[in-house]
């Protein structure tokens, strides 16, 4: 039996060493405007929360904000109603991680009507 137990222990050690727990993934759902809606984009109702993502910063309803400010204000706005639509406009040159940051803030404060628009 001894050689077999040796082999089994080797296997056990191999699996213990190579075992890595997989990362837990999150899903951030968004909605996109229909392809023909780009012309009517200007007539957005004022009830919307408009977040713009630039290469080097964020703006909320036209006012430049830092990431912390954005999180604070969005949390306060979500306190009134979480069914508000958030229109996120993302600049083409900005990193994808910045968009995910904003989607994460929205998820954290319960805003779930997210619409992502890309700016040129």
């Amino acid at each position: 039996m001894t050689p077999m137990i040796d082999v089994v222990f080797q296997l056990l050690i191999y699996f213990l060493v190579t075992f890595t727990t997989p990362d837990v993934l999150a899903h951030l759902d968004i909605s996109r405007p229909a392809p023909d809606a780009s012309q009517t984009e200007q007539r957005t109702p004022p009830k919307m929360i408009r977040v713009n993502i630039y290469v080097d910063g964020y703006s909320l309803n036209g006012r430049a904000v830092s990431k912390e400010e954005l999180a604070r204000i969005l949390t306060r706005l979500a306190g009134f109603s979480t069914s508000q639509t958030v229109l996120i406009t993302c600049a083409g040159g900005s990193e994808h991680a910045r968009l995910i940051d904003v989607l994460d803030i929205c998820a954290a404060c319960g805003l779930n009507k997210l619409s992502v628009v890309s700016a040129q």
Partner: protein
Amino acid sequence: MSRFKQPSGHTNMTPMIDVVFQMIIFFVCTVQLEKEAISEFILLPDSPHGPMVAEAKDPRTITIEVDDRGRMFIARTPLSEAKLRKVLAKTVADYGRYGPSIPIRIRADGGAEHAHVKRVLDACTAAGLHKISFVATKDRA
């Protein structure tokens, strides 16, 4: 018969060990196959507050990957934008009435430019797909 007869007090373990090893090999192989559908070179951005991945996954789900250089992949196959549009349009057409509700998961690298992600989003929208979600890392292991 006497070949299988063990000395008193011992049971023959060999067949059981054979079966156990077969099972180990089977599980090792199947885990490997599952991993190969997604690329390990994509560094997903963090989203600690995002909702967890649903356990019951829609079998129609299409995972599109975008790496940090803007290349697009489905199941590790690199695709041009035109090809991606064609693939999505074909898939939607094949499913008929249920086509537009196919869930899309976008695994984009955190460092990818939004313009590259936008190409995927536009391709999805053009095909009529509207259930789009981004994949991010909730809890790094």
